[in-house]
């Protein structure tokens, strides 16, 4: 030290800087781990809902996959088209085609259609009710109406209607699979929005046995099979099953003679039409 504060200061700080610059440089050489900076940028563009609908365990993982090229930006179901385009143009890749899917409910037996043997009392969740002799509902396959699915949907895409049936709002649904997992009766299925012909029933009984339990049950009358192109609908275990491989051949005609209304043609939201019909009937 010279005793001259000006010189000392410059010396001290200069050498401290020198020392640590040196240290960092060395360590940097030895221990460098390179990470693609674009991952951070892409992650920032993503909506950070971490919903997992893309099939990746979170937005960060999705960003890694997109940067690595193993996923297309459009696989994120939450982002709007604009945001997808942003990511795509940032990375200079193709946005990919989005195929909008929504959750569909395979039951239409709400409390005014289906028979309840005895009232369940206890914890107010479908899962809990299902553990108690099936929840007291007549139809063993039907919706219990206690809204586990509504609670599970983070995007508020489900509401319970007056019949205690969950209604999915297609515009809000991101096909995240949460409701599918939540339902103890496995009543939800994710379907491409183009699939419009839907059998809203899972009851495996036939004839009166089925209709005794629920007025909108599939009673295995086979009319829908007859009314559509061959192979499109098949009766399996007393239930009409649609072969979606042949989705292009489906036609609203198939539902025209269904005596119970178990099979429906859905444009957009489920149950909209049926509730309107109910109102008409009331008038």
């Amino acid at each position: 030290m010279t005793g001259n504060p000006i010189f000392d200061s410059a010396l001290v700080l200069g050498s401290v800087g020198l020392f640590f610059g040196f240290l960092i440089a060395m360590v940097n050489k030895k221990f460098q781990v390179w990470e693609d900076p674009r991952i951070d940028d892409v992650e920032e563009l993503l909506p950070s809902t971490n919903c997992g609908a893309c099939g990746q365990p979170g937005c960060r993982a999705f960003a890694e996959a997109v940067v690595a090229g193993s996923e297309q930006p459009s696989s994120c179901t939450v982002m709007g088209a604009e945001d997808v385009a942003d990511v795509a143009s940032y990375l200079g890749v193709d946005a990919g085609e989005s195929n909008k899917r929504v959750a569909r409910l395979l039951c239409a037996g709400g409390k005014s259609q289906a028979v309840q043997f005895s009232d369940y009392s206890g914890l107010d969740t479908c899962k809990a009710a299902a553990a108690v002799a099936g929840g007291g509902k007549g139809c063993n396959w039907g919706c219990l109406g206690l809204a586990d699915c509504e609670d599970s949907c983070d995007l508020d895409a489900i509401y319970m209607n007056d019949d205690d049936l969950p209604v999915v709002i297609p515009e809000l649904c991101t096909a995240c699979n949460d409701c599918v997992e939540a339902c103890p009766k496995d009543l939800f299925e994710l379907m491409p929005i183009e699939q419009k012909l839907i059998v809203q029933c899972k009851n495996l009984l036939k004839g009166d046995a089925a209709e005794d339990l629920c007025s909108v049950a599939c009673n295995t009358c086979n009319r829908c099979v007859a009314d559509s192109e061959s192979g499109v609908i098949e009766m399996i275990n007393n239930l009409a099953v649609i072969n979606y491989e042949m989705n292009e051949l489906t036609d609203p005609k198939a539902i025209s003679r269904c005596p119970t209304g178990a099979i429906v043609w859905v444009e957009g939201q489920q149950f909209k039409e049926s509730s309107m019909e109910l109102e008409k009937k009331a008038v």
Partner: protein
Amino acid sequence: MRKTTPSQDFIRGIWKENPVLIQMLGLCPALAVTNTVKNALAMSAATFFVICCSSILISTCKRFIPNEVRISAYILVIATFVTLADMMLQAYAPVQHKELGAFIALIVVNCMILGRQEAFSAKNNVFRSLLDAIGTGIGFTIALVMMGGFREILGTGSFMEISLFGPSFEPWVIMVLPAGGFLTLGFILLFMGYIEQRKKTKLEEAEAVEASS
């Protein structure tokens, strides 16, 4: 990473992304020195000075700084200005300096400042960085003065050392103690949450009314 306008850069830090109340950055000084409004102001001023100067300098020199020593270099810059602020306060406002104690030095490690450098100044031009810094600085000041005011009024019955309630006011000692700092910020956050919630339900109600009509 939406594109922002300069005015947005400025406004953002003041309330919507308030560094203390929303982003929870720089909590240590925000809690430690807000037992009176004067201290809060002095702290804010010092912080304001540091964040503005460093933003200007860093956005000017970002080109010359290699990524590996980025943080060290930024910190060096910040520390320089903190030292300057420290010495100047000591020389010109020694009483306040004593009150703030070590917390002036601790501005160096205020995550908010470094965060802004990393997040903004390192990527933007001088003008925008300065705007951002000023906005953030104002946001910090608002938060600190809010807390300081709350704590000083209840804790000593005065505002800016002006007695508000007369001599027989019973001070709430806890407000000027550490626990009071936590509780005050917690209380402010609860209150903000409550307002947010009210806004939300009102919005929903309005929507419902619209939908039904």
